[in-house]
C-alpha cells in the first residue's frame, strides 16, 4: 500500500488507451490503490510508439508508461466466465471502477453498473465513452481524431488560417482523450467526496464529445450571439502573432492591448514607436500591419527564441517560446519546480515523467512506482487480495484467463 494521501481509495481501472487510464492515473498519482485490469494481450496503448530505445515492446511504450504510473496491473480475460467471476469479486470490494466499454459491451459481459451495484451498493462506476451511455450515438465508434472533431474543437483549428481551403485539424497528440480523462476524474472525485460525506455509490457517465465541447464553450457561444458559427479563419481570442527566431524556434507575442505593444516596442529598442504615429494607435498599427510585422520579424531574426522571450517579458509584455519537448524538459523553470518525476521501470529503465502540475503544501508523496508490467501483480492481487492459492493461479494461467 502506498503512503500517498489517497491510499485509502481502492480503484479498479478496467479501461484502455488514453481517456480512462488518464482518469485513473490522476488518482493513482495521489496514492490511490489502483489496480489496472488488462486483457491477456495487454492494453492497446502498449502497442503504440514511442518505444524506449526504439525497440517495439509492450513494456517500452511511452504512452502506456506515462498513463499508468503508480498503478498495479493484473491480466484477466473477461471473455471467459471465470475471468468475469474474478473481475466481479475484485470490483465487489473497491470504491471506484473506471470503465470505457460501450453500454452494449458492458451489458454483454455483465459488468454494467446495474449488475455491479447489486454486488457492491457503495460502488462508484465512472464510464468514459466516445458519446456517453445514452442517446442515438451511444454505440458509435470514435478514435481520438473523431472525438476531437465531434466536439467542435477541430473545426476551429488551425486558428487564424488565412482561408478555409485546407482541412480543419485535431489538437496535439490525444488531447481530447486527456480532456475526457481529467473531466471524468473531477466527477469521480466529486462522487467520492459525496460518498465520504454520507452519500451512496453512483454511476458517472462521461461523454468524451461533451467533455471536449464544454472546454470550447467560450468560442461556441459566438454562434448563440449572432447566429454564425466561428471558424478557423476567425480570431480565437486575443490578438497575437508568431515570429521565427534565429534558432528556428517560434515565439508567440501577445498584442492585445496598448500596454503589450508599448512593452514590445521597448524590448525592440524602439520605445518611441509607442508615442508616435502611426504605431501609437490600434488604427495606425492595423493600417501599417504588414510593415510592422516585417520589422518585428527582422528584429527576431537576430535573436534566439529565449532571448526574445526574456527581453519582452522584462518589459512587462506577454510572450512565450513555442517549445518542443526538448526545450521544455531542459527549461530551468521546469527544473526549479521539480516537475519531472524520475521512476525506475524494470524494462524501460529510469525515466523522467511529467509529474503533477499542482504543488500541494501538505503532500510530499510524489509517486513511487512506474507502470506495471503485463500481469505483474497477478499473484499479489489475485492471491493476497482475493485468496487464490499459487496452485489456482497456475490453473488460471494455463487456461489463459490471466
Amino acid at each position, binding site marked *: 500500500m502506498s503512503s500517498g*494521501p489517497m491510499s485509502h481509495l481502492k480503484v479498479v481501472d478496467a479501461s484502455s488507451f488514453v481517456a480512462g487510464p488518464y482518469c485513473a492515473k490522476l488518482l493513482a498519482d*495521489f496514492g490511490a490503490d489502483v489496480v489496472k485490469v488488462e486483457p491477456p494481450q495487454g492494453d492497446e496503448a502498449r502497442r503504440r*510508439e514511442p518505444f524506449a*530505445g526504439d525497440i517495439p515492446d509492450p513494456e517500452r511504450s*511511452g504512452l502506456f508508461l*506515462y498513463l499508468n504510473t503508480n498503478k498495479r496491473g493484473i491480466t484477466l480475460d473477461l471473455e471467459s466466465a471465470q475471468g468475469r467471476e474474478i473481475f466481479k469479486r475484485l470490483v465487489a470490494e473497491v470504491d471506484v471502477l473506471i470503465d470505457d466499454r460501450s453500454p452494449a459491451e458492458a451489458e454483454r459481459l455483465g459488468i454494467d453498473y446495474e449488475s455491479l451495484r447489486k454486488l457492491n451498493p457503495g460502488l462508484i462506476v465512472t464510464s468514459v465513452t466516445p458519446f*456517453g*451511455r445514452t442517446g442515438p450515438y451511444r454505440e458509435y465508434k*470514435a478514435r481520438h481524431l*473523431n472525438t476531437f472533431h465531434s*466536439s*467542435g*474543437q477541430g473545426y*476551429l*483549428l*488551425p486558428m*487564424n488560417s488565412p482561408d478555409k481551403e485546407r*482541412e*480543419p*485539424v485535431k*489538437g*496535439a*497528440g*490525444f488531447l481530447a482523450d*486527456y480532456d475526457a480523462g481529467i*473531466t471524468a476524474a*473531477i*466527477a469521480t472525485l*466529486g*462522487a467520492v*467526496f*459525496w460518498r*465520504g460525506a454520507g*452519500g451512496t455509490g453512483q454511476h458517472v*457517465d*462521461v461523454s468524451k464529445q461533451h*467533455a471536449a465541447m*464544454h472546454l*470550447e464553450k467560450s468560442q*461556441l*457561444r459566438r454562434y*448563440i450571439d449572432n447566429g454564425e458559427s466561428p471558424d478557423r479563419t476567425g480570431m480565437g*481570442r486575443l490578438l497575437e502573432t508568431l515570429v521565427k527566431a534565429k534558432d528556428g524556434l*517560434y515565439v*508567440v507575442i501577445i498584442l*492585445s492591448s496598448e500596454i503589450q505593444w508599448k512593452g514590445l516596442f521597448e524590448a525592440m529598442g524602439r520605445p518611441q514607436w509607442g508615442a508616435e504615429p502611426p504605431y501609437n494607435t490600434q488604427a495606425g498599427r492595423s493600417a501599417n500591419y504588414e510593415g510592422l510585422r516585417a520589422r518585428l520579424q527582422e528584429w527576431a531574426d537576430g535573436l534566439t527564441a529565449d532571448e526574445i522571450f526574456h527581453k519582452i517579458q522584462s518589459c512587462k509584455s506577454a*510572450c512565450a517560446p513555442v517549445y518542443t*519537448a526538448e526545450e*521544455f*524538459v531542459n527549461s*530551468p523553470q521546469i527544473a*526549479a519546480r521539480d*516537475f519531472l518525476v524520475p521512476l525506475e521501470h524494470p524494462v524501460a529503465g529510469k525515466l523522467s*515523467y*511529467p509529474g503533477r*502540475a*499542482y504543488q*500541494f503544501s*501538505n*503532500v510530499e508523496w510524489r509517486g513511487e512506482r512506474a507502470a506495471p508490467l503485463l500481469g505483474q501483480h497477478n499473484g499479489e492481487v489475485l492471491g493476497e487480495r482475493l485468496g487464490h492459492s499459487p496452485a489456482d493461479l497456475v490453473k488460471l494461467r494455463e487456461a489463459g484467463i490471466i
Partner: protein
Amino acid sequence: MSTQDNLRGALAGVRIADFGWVLAGPYATMLLSYLGAEVIKIESRRRPDEQRIAHRAGFSEDLEASSNFLEVNLNKRSVSLNIATEEGAALARRIVALSDVVVENMRPGVMDRLGLGYSELVKVKPDIIMASISGWGSTGPLRQYTAYAPCFASFGGLANLTGYADGEPNTGTSAMDARSGTAAAFAVLMALNIRQRTGQGQYIDMSSCEALNSLIGENVLEYVMNGRSPVRQGNQDAIMAPHNCYRARGEDKWISIAVATDAEWDGLRQAMGDPEWARDEAFASTYGRWRHRDRLDPLLQQWTVQHDPRELTELLQKHGVPAFPSYNAEELFADPHLRARESITEVKHPVLGDRLAVSPPWRLSETPAAITKTAPLLGEDNEYVLCDLLGLSQDEVARLAEQKVVY
C-alpha cells in the same frame, strides 16, 4: 444525506471564495459549482472581471451584457467588494473564514500584497484550501512572467504539436485557458477529499504550462527516451491510415475517418461499394495504408466529397468504421444526440435573454450536476453575503457602499 442534499449536488455544503478572473479561475470554480459547491465571486467596479467588458472589438461600458462572462460564471453568486481597500480586504478575509476553498489566478504575489495570501488566510481558516493558478507557478525563475493562454500552450509544448506538418505551430483557442481551469478544479477536488480524511487544508500552487504539458506526456517521453521531439502532423496518426479530415458535400463540410484495422478497412471499402482503387495491394495492410497515405487520402476524398457528412457518418458507423463530421457550432447546438442527452440546455439572463448553452460535462446518477442559476450581476448577492453570512447591518452596508468599499 437527505434527498434535498443530493439534489444540491455532490459538493453540497462546500463554499468557495472566488477571486478568479478572465478564464482559467472562473472556469475552475464553475466546474465545482456544477457539482453543488456555493461559489461567491468577489469582484468590484474598480477592477471588474475583464470578461465583463472585453470584446473582440474593444471594450464595452455595460458590465452585464457579456456572453463571454456568462459562459464561465454560471451558478455563481457575486459580491462587489473593493479588495484594494483595507476594509474590503478585511471583509474578504471574513468571507474566507466561512469558506472551504479559495481560488485565485492573479499574478504571483498580488494576493499577498492585498493581505489575502495563504499565510493570512490560513489564520482566519486553518483548514482552508487555497488554489493559485498562474502561468508558470509561484516559484522558479519565470514566476513573475506574464502569461495568457497562447503563452502556456506554447511553452507547455502543445502549440508545437498543433497544425499542418508544413505549416506554423498553432496556439489553439481559449479552450487552452479552460484546460488550465480544469486541472485546477481537479486539484481542488483532490484537496477536498484529502481534507475530508485528514482534516488538513492545503496551499495549491498550479502552473498552467505544466498543466497543459501533462496532456501530452507521451510526447515528452519520446524526447526523454529517444532524444527526439515530435512535431505537428495535421490530422495524421503514427500508425493509422486513412486518418484524416476529408471534404464532404456542402460548404466547408468535413468528415473525420480513422481506420486502424483490416476489418475497418474492409468496412470502408464495402461502404464505398468496393471501388477498383481500394483493391490496390498497396492498401491491403495497415502498414501499407499508412505508408501510402498521401496517395490514399485524395482517392478517399473523391468519394467523401460527394456525400453529406452526417449521412456518411451513419453509413460508415454501420460498417464499423470510426467516422464523424468536423462539427461547427451550429451543427453542435442542433445535434439530435446532444439534444437527447441534454448536453445543450437553456440559460436565462436578465440582459442577454434566453440562450442555449453547453450543459455540465457529466451525468451523475445520484447527485446530478446542473446549471441552477445564470451568471450573476455585479454585486447581485451583496445582501446575502454581507448581511446574511457576515452579519452586517443594512446601515453598515450603506456606509461601505458610500465609501466605495462595497463598490
